[in-house]
């Protein structure tokens, strides 16, 4: 092994493979990245051994530590139609631009009367949103006494629209003889670990009143090797 005599100065290094790899990875991550808007609240779900993937097509109720509930639909068509029907029911008008913007939003947790202002607000301003009522993001009302149970209406109408959208997409695909792969909409509940269960119970009651009994509870994956599966 003979060493080449160095000419002095910086050593020459062939970076080509490294650059190739770097760009390959950049391309991969760029293509797989899916950008989402920030959720209105950050909740830290408890961990479990649940291995079921959350279906892409779901209706989500998020409950934060203070018991505020937030509502979201993943299917944009269903979301749009649900907003139109809610708008008619609660007599809160929305402009076309607001409806379009709403379909791009993640879940929200305001009274429907504040929703137009919430949609118009800038993304950074939403965190500190107060709205015309001055109450801000107090969660979707689920008051059963007044009664002002908007959450129940959202779930009922959102669920109905999601199923309708699913069925019509399925019918169209069958008519054209195409393979149909979409999943049926499911109901998901995401809840912070420290939330009092009583708040969850209240939300679940809204679902069971609507004869919806099956849920996907979102949990983070159990870390480490602490879980022993006795069936193995």
């Amino acid at each position, binding site marked *: 092994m003979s060493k080449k005599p160095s000419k002095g100065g910086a050593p020459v290094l062939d970076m080509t493979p490294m650059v190739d790899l770097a*760009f390959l*990875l950049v391309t991969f991550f760029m293509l*797989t990245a899916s950008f989402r808007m920030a959720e209105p609240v950050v909740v830290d779900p408890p961990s479990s051994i649940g291995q079921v993937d959350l279906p892409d097509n779901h209706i989500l109720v998020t*409950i934060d530590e203070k018991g505020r509930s937030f509502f979201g639909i993943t299917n944009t068509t269903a979301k749009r139609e649900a907003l139109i029907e809610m708008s008619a029911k609660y007599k809160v008008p929305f402009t076309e631009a607001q409806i379009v913007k709403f379909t791009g939003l993640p879940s929200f947790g305001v009274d429907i009367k504040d929703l137009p202002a919430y949609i118009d607000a800038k993304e950074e301003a939403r965190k500190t949103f107060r709205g015309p009522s001055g109450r801000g993001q107090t969660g979707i009302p689920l008051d059963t006494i007044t009664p002002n149970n908007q959450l129940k209406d959202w779930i009922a109408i959102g669920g109905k629209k999601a199923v309708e959208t699913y069925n019509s997409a399925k019918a169209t695909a069958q008519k054209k003889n195409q393979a149909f792969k979409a999943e049926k909409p499911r109901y998901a509940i995401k809840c912070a670990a*420290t939330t009092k269960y009583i708040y969850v119970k209240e939300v679940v009651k809204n679902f069971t009143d609507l004869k919806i*009994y*099956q*849920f996907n*509870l979102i949990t983070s994956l159990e870390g480490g090797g602490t879980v022993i599966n006795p069936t193995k």
Partner: protein
Amino acid sequence: MAEIAEGGGGSHKGGKKRAKKQSTRMDMTPMVDLAFLLLTFFVLTATFSKPKSMELTFPAPPPIDQKIDQVKNGITILLTKEDRIFYYEGELRPEADDKGPKTTLTELNFSQGSLHKYLLEKNKVMQDQIKALTVKHDNKQLEDTTYKRLVRERKSDKESYTYLIKTDDQATYKNVIDVIDELNINVVGKYVMVDILKPEMDMINEKVGAN
């Protein structure tokens, strides 16, 4: 620094001299910098896995005039504040009567040696049966569908325990998930979330207050 392969396409054997060697060199440092910057950004913002979830079915509210407390082989797990768990077996007896003594609560906790061990003991028979089935299945002695059916039958066996999970106002969501998780780990087939009853609430208060 890095070089670009030069003299491309030249297939003349030992032909031309590489006259332009110097001019084809290019400083790739800024490009590499940028590439790694982007790479770092995308790696950090990437969300790899979809959120996982746990499927749970809540019971339908019973018809108003029907009582639901007639559960055979029931074990009631009560959750309360400070991550504490209590349980009692069988029917609830607020006071001693001719069928048996007054119900007392036993405390458990979330450590491996407590709730996990308790459920493991309670479910030993069923777990062993399922384990035997799994072994058979792994050795290809059982069809997939038969295996699944048998496991389901074992889980819904009449003699196995039904777990009723009840919480008071203070219990957190995490406790509930942990208990359900523990039941799942112990392949319990029958468990259900139920509303807490007044006497149970009183018993918890008595315990929590006393300790």
